[in-house]
């Protein structure tokens, strides 16, 4: 079963066409790595999949629910507000710059949506939070505030926040780009562990070695199109453009 289906996605910002007909399928338990040069449309694709940007044309469904589709007559229509909220409850997104809520403790960052969106009891939310923090090696930081944490710790909290709702799929938008190499390896380790647990994930990254190791499928994007995809495109690229890009690493 496909957890994420994107078909013929088109997206423009004013006159600039950023996505020129992208097809992407992610199966349950699959880890998909998206690589490619900056400005190639990777982040925009992720933002379209996570409702942060609206597409101009195409179909997206997440966990079997249709988020948006373009009818035969060419009309692109998003689902109603209520279904949209439901779909948002089915996935998580980890941002490049964390976007934690600075005025909330680590615990509240993780439990706030559980309590006020998913209507769980405080006890239940707290126990989910404790389990996640323990898993991520942060059990002593529940009462700390984001400003007192290192970048790596903040990103762990943001991963915990995304995992708390038990999502069907987790998106990562360059999760280590704001971190130094030492902290990066810690976050990559967390993502590897999630992959071992068969968490369905889509990861936009510039960490080629990591992408090659962890991804079941790699997608190379440039100029708003998918140039090449497959398991081995890093070790064995077929297209000239892919080779050219990888030569830089």
């Amino acid at each position, binding site marked *: 079963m496909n957890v994420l289906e994107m078909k013929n996605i088109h997206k423009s910002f004013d006159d600039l066409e950023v996505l020129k007909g992208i097809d992407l399928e992610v199966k349950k338990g699959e880890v998909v790595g998206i690589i490619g040069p900056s400005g190639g449309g990777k982040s925009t694709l992720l933002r379209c999949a*996570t409702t942060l940007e609206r597409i101009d044309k195409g179909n997206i469904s997440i966990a079997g629910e249709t988020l948006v589709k373009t009818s035969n007559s060419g009309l692109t229509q998003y689902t109603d507000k209520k279904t949209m*909220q439901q779909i*948002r409850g089915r*996935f998580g*997104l980890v941002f490049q*710059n964390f976007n934690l*809520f600075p005025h909330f403790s680590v615990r509240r960052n993780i439990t706030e949506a559980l309590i006020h*969106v998913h209507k769980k009891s405080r006890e239940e939310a707290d126990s989910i939070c404790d389990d996640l923090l323990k898993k991520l090696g942060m059990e002593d930081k529940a009462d700390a505030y984001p400003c007192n944490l290192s970048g790596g710790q903040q990103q762990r909290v943001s991963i915990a926040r995304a995992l708390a709702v038990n999502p069907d799929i987790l998106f990562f938008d360059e999760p280590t780009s704001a971190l130094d190499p030492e902290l990066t390896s810690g976050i990559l380790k967390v993502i590897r562990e999630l992959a071992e647990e068969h968490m369905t994930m889509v990861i936009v990254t510039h960490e080629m070695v990591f992408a090659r190791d962890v991804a079941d499928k790699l997608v190379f994007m440039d100029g708003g199109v998918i140039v090449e995809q497959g398991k081995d495109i890093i070790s064995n690229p077929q297209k000239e453009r892919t080779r050219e890009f990888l030569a830089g690493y």
Partner: protein
Amino acid sequence: MADIASTLSQLAGGLRFTLGIFFLTLLFSIPLGLLVARGRMSKNKIVSGIIRVYISIMRGTPLMLQLLLVYFGPYYIFAVKLSDLDVGPFKYRFVATIIGFSLNYAAYFAEIFRGGIQSMPVGQYEASQILGFTRMQTYFRIILPQVVKRVLPSVTNEVITLVKDTSLAQVLAVTEMFTTAKNLASAQVSVMPFIVAGVFYYVMNGVIEIVMNRAEKSMSYYS
């Protein structure tokens, strides 16, 4: 000595109006300022245009003139008798003072709030959206608490100015503290009442500084 005692007690009488103007203005102008700020940021060009003009007029003309307009406007423009406009125990001159002050201060607060709201990183909205918070939840749980911290120093400035501006109510013959001081000074042929009134204003603002500093400190646990 008797003079000072009676000066103090009469000024204290005026102080009731000063405090009344102060607290009622804050009570109305802060929520109104939030609404005005939202209107100013509205995508609807007509709404934001009207609000823009409103803010421009409120900031661009003297508060004293605005007070006079609110007070005399109903009679001269609409031929409404002022005594019909008393609200409960409050004379219309006091009501007009509160309306004038609230409209004026709402404009200033609105611009402060707008600055605070617009300084919030877009990532806070995006994270809230992804987590499934409604727009109301996002505003009241995520955005507003952080905006409060950001705008507090500027708000303190306005609040302190408001304490001193209450003396403008004298143009509507509201017997607040400054009016009382002026009357006493001319009756006693002495500057003493002015000095005492000055001390009152200064002490009030001292209290405000202490309170606002505490408020700022209580939010300093995060940055």
